[in-house]
């Protein structure tokens, strides 16, 4: 995949089915000059909503974030899913496909599961994910960017950055680096926020995510809830500040904040725009 040929999209906001009803209307933020594109989180069971159709109707840029395929299981990437995803993505003019590389469901794809789990961080798993991504790209003709998922338990011997570096190398694909999810991984494994980034192929990073998280405690076990509240943790900012100037093919930065009151995210949109100017 020729990453340099992908269009620059700027700063975007995430959305999911019906998220604008109680959260943020991206069109309004676009009109304020804060948002350039919309990343729509989609599963085939629910499809497109009025919000993304209204956005796409104005010919504004989008990306398609899947919520219903297990990239870790190449058999899950079936023809029906591929055909329907490609049709929806093209309907909204998506520049590429992206989504968490792991498990969105267990067993056959079914409505309402969306139980996002991380992949097993091993070489064999990375190679299978690479096969799945190649299949997505070959059949849809669109770039597919795997994203590092959040979790409280990561199994496997690899660092998550090494895992996705291997995926990108085998699949020759771009990457979506979620800075908040990486901060979670580093904390769970006891690493510093930037650990492992020196060997990571930042030239493959096409998109990054920035999102708020909340530090929580379960019976003395400290963990980070990826709850997309307005305020990213300092570790997340540190990762974003490190990556953005070092990623030559970076095309898009998404601030995942769609379910918050609009006034609580304006300052951070301005900060992100300054960071990714």
């Amino acid at each position, binding site marked *: 995949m020729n990453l340099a040929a992908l269009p620059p999209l700027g700063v975007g906001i995430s959305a999911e089915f019906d998220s604008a009803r109680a959260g943020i209307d991206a069109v309004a933020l676009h009109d304020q000059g804060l948002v350039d594109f919309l990343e729509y989180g989609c599963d085939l069971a629910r499809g497109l909503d009025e919000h993304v159709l209204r956005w796409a109707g104005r010919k504004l840029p989008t990306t398609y974030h899947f919520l219903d395929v297990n990239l870790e299981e190449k058999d899950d990437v079936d023809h*029906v899913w591929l055909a329907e995803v490609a049709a929806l993505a093209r309907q909204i003019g998506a520049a590429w496909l992206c989504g968490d590389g792991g498990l969105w469901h267990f*067993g056959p794809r079914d409505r309402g599961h969306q*139980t996002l789990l991380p992949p*097993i961080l091993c070489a064999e798993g990375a190679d299978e994910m690479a096969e799945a991504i190649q299949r997505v790209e070959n059949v849809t003709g669109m770039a597919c960017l795997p994203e590092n998922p959040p979790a*409280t*338990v990561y199994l496997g011997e690899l660092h998550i950055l090494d895992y996705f570096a291997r995926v990108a190398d085998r699949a020759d694909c771009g990457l979506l680096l979620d800075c908040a999810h990486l901060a979670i991984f580093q904390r*769970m494994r006891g690493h510093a926020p930037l650990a492992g980034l020196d060997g990571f192929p930042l030239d493959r990073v096409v998109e990054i995510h920035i999102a708020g998280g909340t530090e929580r405690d379960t019976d*003395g076990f400290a963990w980070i809830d990826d709850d997309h509240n307005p305020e990213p943790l300092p570790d997340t900012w540190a990762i974003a500040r490190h990556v953005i100037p070092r990623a030559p093919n970076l095309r898009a930065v998404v601030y995942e904040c769609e379910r918050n009151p609009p006034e609580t995210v304006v300052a951070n949109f301005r900060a992100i725009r300054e960071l990714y100017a």
Partner: protein
Amino acid sequence: MSHHALQDALVIALHDEGFVAAMHRDPEGTLAPLRLSPAERAQLLAADPRAFRTDPLRRRRILRVLAEELRASTTLALAETRSLAFAEGFFASPAFRAAVIERRPLVLAFGDYLGAAGLAAPLAGEIVRLETLLARCRRDRLRPPRPGITLAPGVAAASFDAATLPAVQALERYVFELGLMPQVALCDDRPPPPVAAPSGRTAHLLVTPTATGVSLTTIDDDLHRVLARLAAPIDRAGAAAALAPAGVPAAAAGDLVQSLLEEGLLADGPPEDAVLIATRTA
């Protein structure tokens, strides 16, 4: 060993605290069915047990979806057991573990769990069986036809006590009315769920696929007997022999099969060894 086995173990551990406790107490016995390598087993055991229970609503989110589909069955089960622990106990059941390992739809496993719960309510077994059948047909309708002539994907014919379907509809209406104001469930004078008695009569029901799901109709004895004979694949030459026990004259068997094919109740799938000229799309 495939990393998928470790992934299965992770799924089970995230949904069943009892499994996590058991695997630390008795790693050999608890993890043996998952066939993990020693390294994978060590990785799983090295994870902090508390990390598996950071999301207390994980089970409930899945149950919500399962209960939507097996609505009457779940209502009946919870009305009888009055126990959330019973519902969440599904994740500690052999049905759940088998579904994870065998990649089986969870809703069918949940149906098995409810069906094996020994519910005392009249018609409980029939209601669970009917809703599970519908769930299976909703998923089957998307698969390619099996080789030979047999019921089309998503089609099923089955017999139930005649009071079963009205009982399901009454329970669905009850849940709808409860959903108008969920706090009603907290009231001592809340309306009780409807309880139907078996009728002693049999109703034959036909499940057929639609664009978005399945539909259910009552059929007569004759059609039920014919469709029951065609639940296992036949070939055209064997139609007369297959349908003779259903009372179909040999001379009429071919035309009957053809008409059922045209109605979409049967499908004529390619043989297993057929050469495909295009990849199947389902």
